[in-house]
């Protein structure tokens, strides 16, 4: 459920005004990963398909396996304007208009040759590793994929934090599943014996990158914010939420990124947008909900053109709420994987999500909360209006609500979104204008 930098073949190129080293590095990492994935015939490494929230990248690496993330493929296809066709294909094959479009984009893509962004077909996975955390649809998605691939499938059921806490029973259950189901399945498929010390090594590496990631996301507390924590944020979380967590590459990426942002802060610069440095920052927003990918640029532009910068977002926490203090822990490897899975944003209950957003509003000194409600995603969306009310009530700051979709171009109505955003910005303005001189 996260973006990664659009691939080098992206038909919607960034106007490369500034090309920072971290961007280059990330592109190169992603390209390399797709090349690895599409050349399994040559190197023979096995592939696991899995989800972003609660993904077990370190564990997968312990078995020399590659990690393929259908959500990321769907995003890539959304950004490359292919998802519309894929969704149509899936609907033609009997899928309802109503269901999550990630699933349909993925199934449609498979039906149409499963071509990866590098132009080569993705391999059939050797294992479907169903990390069932934070979203119910995952389960159906992998059942559908299993029909497609007829390959081994292993379920890791992560209990939901219904009462806003994780219990020992929950943790034990996950660890037990890891021990008795997931690890044996990975061993069987890969033929590699599990080595817990290898896992510890990767986890140690993860924790390093995680420290820098948190620093990066929190840099938006500065004024002006040196980053956009939503539109830019989706790029920043790419490596850590996907196939790179636990690799030196990721660590290096975040080190680079951190130094670049340090420099931006020193120079008092705002975020880099596709059209260069963002100039004035009139509105600081917290955003809840995933972005729209099919019109990502157009969507972003509606913000920076009007001087709106996102200082914190919940979406950058779908692959882990590191800013709340969690780190992968080499000393408690399986337990920390369990805690990681349970802690991802959408596995937290609604009251926890509200608390978090409220905290962001305060700590990042935001002017308002914007919710981008995604038609596809019940996990995020069912309850967002409640979130909006509560945050508004608690912070006294205005909130706004827009509705789009992830990768279904039919549900991005630019005129509508723009109308609402403009009204919202004018409303913040007007409110500000009145506050001091009300009398």
């Amino acid at each position, binding site marked *: 459920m996260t973006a990664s930098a659009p691939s080098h073949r992206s038909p919607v190129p960034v106007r490369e005004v500034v090309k920072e080293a971290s961007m280059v590095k990330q592109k190169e990492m992603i390209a390399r990963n797709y090349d690895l994935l599409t050349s399994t015939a040559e190197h023979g490494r096995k592939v696991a398909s899995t989800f972003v929230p609660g993904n077990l990248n370190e564990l997968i690496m312990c078995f020399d396996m590659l990690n393929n993330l259908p959500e990321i493929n769907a995003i890539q296809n959304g950004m490359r304007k292919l998802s519309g066709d894929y969704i149509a294909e899936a609907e*033609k094959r009997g899928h309802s*208009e109503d269901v999550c479009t990630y699933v349909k984009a993925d199934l449609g893509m498979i039906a149409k040759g499963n071509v990866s962004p590098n132009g080569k077909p993705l391999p059939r996975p050797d294992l479907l590793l169903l990390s069932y955390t934070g979203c119910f649809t995952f389960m159906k998605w992998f059942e559908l994929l299993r029909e497609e691939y007829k390959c081994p499938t292993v379920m890791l059921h992560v209990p939901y934090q219904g009462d806003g806490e994780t219990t020992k029973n929950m943790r034990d259950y996950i660890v037990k599943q890891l021990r008795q189901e997931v690890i044996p399945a990975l061993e069987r498929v890969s033929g590699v014996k599990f080595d817990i010390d290898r896992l510890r090594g990767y986890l140690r590496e993860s924790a390093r990158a995680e420290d820098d990631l948190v620093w990066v996301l929190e840099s938006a507390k500065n004024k002006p914010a040196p980053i956009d924590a939503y539109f830019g944020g989706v790029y920043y979380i790419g490596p850590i939420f996907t196939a790179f967590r636990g690799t030196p590459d990721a660590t290096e990426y975040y080190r680079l990124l951190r130094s670049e942002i340090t420099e931006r802060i020193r120079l008092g610069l705002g975020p880099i947008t596709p059209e260069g440095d963002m100039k004035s920052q009139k509105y600081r927003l917290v955003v809840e909900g995933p972005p729209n990918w099919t019109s990502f640029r157009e969507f972003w532009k509606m913000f920076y053109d009007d001087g709106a910068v996102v200082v914190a977002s919940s979406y950058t926490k779908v692959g882990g709420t590191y800013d709340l203090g969690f780190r992968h822990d080499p000393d408690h490897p399986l337990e920390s994987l369990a805690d990681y899975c349970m802690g991802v944003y959408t596995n937290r209950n609604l009251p926890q999500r509200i608390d978090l957003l409220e905290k962001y509003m305060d700590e990042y000194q935001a002017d308002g909360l914007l919710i981008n409600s995604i038609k596809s995603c019940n996990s995020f969306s069912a309850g967002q209006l409640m979130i909006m009310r509560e945050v508004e009530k608690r912070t006294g700051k205005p909130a706004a609500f827009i509705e789009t979709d992830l990768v279904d171009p*039919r549900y991005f109505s630019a005129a509508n979104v723009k109308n609402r955003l403009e009204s919202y910005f004018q409303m913040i303005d007007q409110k500000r204008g009145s506050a001091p001189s009300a009398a």
Partner: protein
Amino acid sequence: MTITAGIDVGTGCVKVALFETGGGAPRWLGRRVERIRQRNPYALAGDAFDALLEEAGLRRGDVAYIATTGDGESISFATGHFYSMTTHARGAIHLDPSTRLVLDVGALHGRAIRTDARGKVLSYKMTSQCASGSGQFLENIARYLGIAQDEIGTLSLQGTAPEKVSSICAVLAETDVINMVSRGISAANILKGIHVSMAQRLAALVRGIGVLEGTVLVTGGLGLDRGLVAAIQEASAEAQLPVQVRSHPDAIYAGAIGAALWGAFRHEKLSARPPGALAS
């Protein structure tokens, strides 16, 4: 010789067909279509039926099976009812035996019905509940543009640069069209644009149902709209569907024809069955 009637009560029109069957091909005895226009459709159906009988010199008692279809379930003088897709499939086969897919496009609905050579419904798809891209919508726009119904097709065929209708909602689409008028887009291009967007939705149904060859017969009132039929053909070609999209001058009667013919079939089946086997 058996005389049967089919009565198709639609949202826009009531259609009645009278047939004689038994011994060779079924024979038309008469047909009639009435626009409903705020009248009670059931009363209208009765009147149209009686008028048709009178023309043919018959009485109700002469008709062996009066079959209703469409919304006609509750017509009291009917012998039985068949549902629209059942009747359109059969009617289409009667009008054009090479039909493998029926696109029934009426005032408020669009349906794709896959049929075999005997008129058996194999599968179907319907446009969603939302009314955008319906015949009613087209009718409204045409009126707004000052164009009579039977002119629509001809005009649309003259369109060279169809203007895309972006909105999914019929009401909002209407606003779109008004915008077009104010931008000076010609009526031909506006109509063609609507046809194209309707055709795309319909072609998606065709594609969705997985028909890959044979004749697609457009039935229902919009079968008479040559512009729409042409647009569907184009859209199918674009979607690389190797099908022939056609219509028939009697396309609007497809449901009524099917009802009359199924009525004949059922009549025969029931005559062979001991009386009172089923209450119905």
